């Protein structure tokens, strides 16, 4: 599923032709490409604990989770009663040695650990902080953030499209090749609401807008 609608998150199977005619759910026409399987959970990736362990290498939450794990490992090695201040951590710290535990414990783990074991914590916290800082300074990593921003650019796109169409509409009903030499787009002249009543060599047209045309109609001809 390498493509995903940036508007509603609809995921398309690899090689799907569905999106050629726009997203079937929201009609969006902007898709982001993910060569791997990541996109399925990327929009909501941050808060989920499982994501932290899965995407260790790529996300901020992963780094935080890893930092927390190291802290916890350090705490476990020191055999200190770290569970007291943070009852939520009890289960996690017990199962810690066995498995890479979820990153959800990260926010709780830090304060709790800090309070309990000053000596080991300092080292652990230092690495944790430094790791968090390292990752957060990388500008390219937070791909999830881009998904959130995408709708903004999506909204900007139609404006550009409209503008281009508008300009195309206005363009070249009469082209001045050189003074006294003109090329006319008859279909464009026919389709225009406005009526060109005078041409100037500098490329300006004097036009009459439709409302005014009604009044000027008889006088122009006679």
């Amino acid at each position, binding site marked *: 599923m390498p493509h995903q609608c940036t508007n509603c998150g609809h995921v398309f199977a690899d090689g799907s032709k569905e999106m050629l005619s726009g997203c079937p759910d929201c009609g969006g026409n902007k898709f982001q490409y993910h060569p791997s399987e990541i996109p399925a959970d990327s929009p909501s990736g941050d808060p989920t604990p499982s994501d932290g362990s899965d995407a260790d290498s790529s996300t901020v939450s992963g780094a935080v989770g890893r930092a927390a794990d190291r802290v916890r490992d350090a705490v476990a090695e020191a055999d200190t009663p770290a569970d007291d201040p943070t009852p939520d951590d009890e289960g996690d710290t017990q199962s810690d040695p066995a498995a890479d535990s979820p990153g959800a414990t990260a926010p709780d783990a830090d304060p709790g650990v800090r309070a309990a074991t000053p000596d080991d914590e300092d080292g652990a916290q230092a690495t944790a902080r430094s790791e968090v800082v390292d990752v957060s300074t990388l500008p390219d990593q937070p791909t999830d953030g881009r998904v959130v921003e995408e709708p903004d650019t999506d909204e900007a796109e139609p404006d550009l499209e409209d503008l281009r169409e508008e300009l195309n509409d206005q363009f070249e*009903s*009469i082209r001045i090749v050189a*003074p*006294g*030499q*003109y*090329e*006319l*787009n*008859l*279909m464009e*002249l*026919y*389709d*225009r609401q406005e*009526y*060109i*009543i*005078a*041409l100037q*060599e500098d490329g300006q047209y004097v036009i009459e807008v439709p409302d005014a*045309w*009604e*009044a000027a*109609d008889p006088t*122009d*001809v*006679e």
Partner: protein
Amino acid sequence: MGLFADLRDSVSRVTASLFADDSEPKRIGIYGPPNAGKTTLANRIARDWTGDAVGPESHIPHETRRARRKENVEIERNGKTVTIDIVDTPGVTTKVDYSQFLDHDMEKDEAVRRSREATEGVAEAMHWLREDVDGVIYVLDATNDPFTQVNTMLIGIIESRDLPVLILANKTDLDDANIQRVSNAFPQHETIPLSALEGENMDEVYDKIAAYFG
């Protein structure tokens, strides 16, 4: 003041269209490429039925650079009277170049000015076709190839608007006039040969005008 005049005009136009729909003369545009004989035809019709002319005729292309209207032309056919307004329009083309006028003993400045006016005229003709025409007399020079972009496009526009159209193969007084070629070009429409200059076959033209636009 202008606003009131506009308002009055539009009110009177609306009431006129409400109460006098049938008696309102149809506005018939005479269209075609430059130098096909549109003004010659318009003058012929106007002189035959009103005694006036519509505008000056010339062998120089783009002599007519503003649409000219002759109102209330009453044409009698078989005891009935058909009233139309004739609009003689500038020749429609996709290119206007002042150099084509230089051959006609014209100074460059005048040629450039004529070229600009001709271009404005085409814009006006196209605008009339969109807004103000109830039927079309399409005039072609029968000595020229009728398969041109302009002819195809204009006939297409006229057809898309469901306007009644009469195709005239003009200049039958010239030796190399080829009426068959014109009728082959637009087989979906009736083609009537004539010489507007000599007045040849005008009776049939008036018959058809009464039938198409009456």
